[in-house]
């Protein structure tokens, strides 16, 4: 095969389709949104760019700030849960046998083969007050009641007055449950790839030198997987911050996140300029996060280079 690297004509010919596509359908629309964010509605359908900062100022209203704060909080809690749940799984996959590994990875990827909307509706069925989760809890409660009766302890009334179903839909817990579910594969895969590259004898060397399992995890395993963990945290947090469907369906409109407010501006409220301003603020927040990541990497490599 001919060597095509470094040839300008080949570079342009091969990158042109992507370049044109992204310009037309990403850069241009984003530019329009950016212009809108400095605009005002003059008629119902016409927006004029007046370079007003009102739209951005409105974001500072307590109501919106509270929503943004909640979005960050929900995304943060979901990310933390994802890391704690995902890390052990990533470790299991990374240390699994050659035979088991592709199957475990397949299990992680499987949800992507089903439509998100359908999966979220299925979650509704599980999390509802009369959903499957409460069915299980009710069953457990009844068994416990029977057990209590068997021991003759009814008088103590240890179990309360009766089974109260767990309310998850329309609560932050339900939304977090949904976000964790959707995000988990994105958390597991970067950590897995960091652990996969690690030489197993490093962990053995640590044990050989007198460290216990926990010390080895703290001193060797986690520090060496750190770049994967940071990537996982960011790749989990950013989409979680922009979640729309999960708060919409599992939050029942009571646990709105930023994306739900944006949607409302573009639809019911017909306030595109304000919607654009919030969207772009979310984008800026994302940029700041990514910049922090680069600073972290730079600082780390500098520190390691000097030592």
């Amino acid at each position, binding site marked *: 095969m001919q060597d095509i690297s470094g040839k300008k004509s080949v570079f342009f010919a091969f990158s042109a389709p992507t370049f044109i596509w992204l310009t037309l359908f990403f850069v241009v629309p984003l530019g329009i949104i950016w212009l809108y964010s400095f605009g005002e509605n003059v008629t119902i359908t016409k927006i004029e760019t007046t370079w007003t900062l009102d739209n951005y100022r409105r974001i500072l209203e307590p109501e919106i700030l509270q929503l943004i704060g909640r979005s960050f909080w929900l995304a943060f809690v979901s990310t933390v849960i994802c890391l704690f749940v995902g890390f052990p799984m990533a470790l299991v996959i990374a240390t699994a046998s050659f035979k088991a590994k592709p199957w475990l990875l397949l299990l992680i990827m499987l949800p992507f083969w089903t439509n998100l909307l359908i999966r979220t509706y299925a979650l509704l069925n599980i999390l509802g007050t009369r959903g499957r989760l409460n069915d299980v809890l009710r069953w457990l409660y009844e068994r416990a009641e029977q057990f209590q009766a068997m021991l003759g302890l009814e008088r103590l009334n240890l179990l309360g007055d009766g089974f109260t179903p767990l309310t998850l839909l329309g609560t932050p817990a339900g939304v977090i449950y949904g976000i964790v579910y959707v995000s988990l594969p994105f958390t597991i895969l970067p950590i897995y790839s960091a652990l996969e590259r690690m*030489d197993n*004898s*490093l962990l*053995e*060397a*640590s*044990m*050989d*030198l*007198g*460290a*216990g399992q926990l*010390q080895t995890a703290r*001193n*060797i395993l986690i*520090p*060496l997987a750190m770049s994967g963990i940071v990537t996982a945290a960011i790749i989990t947090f950013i989409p979680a911050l922009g979640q729309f469907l999960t708060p919409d369906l599992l939050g029942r409109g009571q646990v709105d996140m930023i994306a739900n407010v944006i949607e409302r501006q573009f639809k019911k409220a017909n306030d595109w300029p304000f919607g654009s301003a919030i969207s772009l603020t979310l984008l800026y927040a994302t940029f700041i996060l990514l910049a922090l990541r680069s600073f972290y990497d730079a600082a780390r490599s500098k520190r*390691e*280079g000097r*030592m």
Partner: protein
Amino acid sequence: MTDTIVSIRGITKRFGSVEALKNISIDIQQGEIFALLGPSGCGKSTLLRLISGFESPSEGELLLDGNDMTALPPNKRPINMVFQSYAVFPHMNVEDNVAYGLKMEKVPAKEIKERVAIALEQVHLSNFSQRKPDQLSGGQRQRVALARALVKRPRVLLLDEPLSALDAKLRDAMRLELVKLQESVGVTFIIVTHDQAEAMAMADRIAVLESGTLRQVASPAELYAHPADAFVADFIGNINAFDVQQISTIDTGVALHIDELGVIEWFSEPPSTISIPASSEDKVEATLSVRPEHVSISTTIPANDQVSIEGTLGDIAFQGQHSIAEIRLDNGRSISAIIANDQALILPGANKQLRIWAHWSINNMLLLPKKAPPL
């Protein structure tokens, strides 16, 4: 009589249905360099991992200074290991790598500093203490791994293929240095290697393993001069082996019937590991061998007191101090002889089809069973 430090007693290790080690018993002496030698897959690495504690035996027990340590986890054994990949922690500098084991022991900071400095000096890395592993060469990384293990003052140091990742020149230097280091610190070394030259050059004693069984434990010189069987003889150095077809008892000893050499009278007791069949029809599992350095070649018929075989001169390989000549026998086999370079120079090339005689004294021959019963 020296003291036994590690005692391996009847160790069997199974992975599923595969027996990686079969009933191995070895006593390793205090202060010696002991090599576990064998081809890949012989179980030597498994044995090392058993001693370090990363694997536990299916049967048998491990004693350290006479105390059972079979159930002790690796971090509780006063035994340290230099891994084949060195396993130097990439996120720590040299000093922190070496200090790691002492920190785990909760040694006071001041003492850690002193001991790390001494250990780095021992491996000539004092000027590299602040370097990160990726700023070190392979040889330097190995020294870090050595210092990191020795600073713990282990009773036994395990080395897994310590020289295999180094280039040839560094390998020879490091071989010598490891031996010197061992002499100065006095710690017992157990070295795993597949390279017989490495084991011969470094070890006080060598255990030869083959497919999970122990074939022989002896000093390098003993292994070379008196191998237990044809496998060991072939593995330790090079050898020309001839299959013995029949053995019959004669007045003065035994007569060996060999297709290629005719009948050879063997004037001493054959080894007890060779069973002499009652009937001459029965198959004999023995070989008669001679090492290439004992074989001479000549273009004339050799003297009667020599064992000789006729063939065609094949390729001659120049080795530096000497040359190795290939003698192609008429049955298609080849044997080799180490000859002086002077002689090699006057011999014609292989294409000349020169008829020659390879010959040697019977005193230099080894009568060995094909396979001795495992120890």
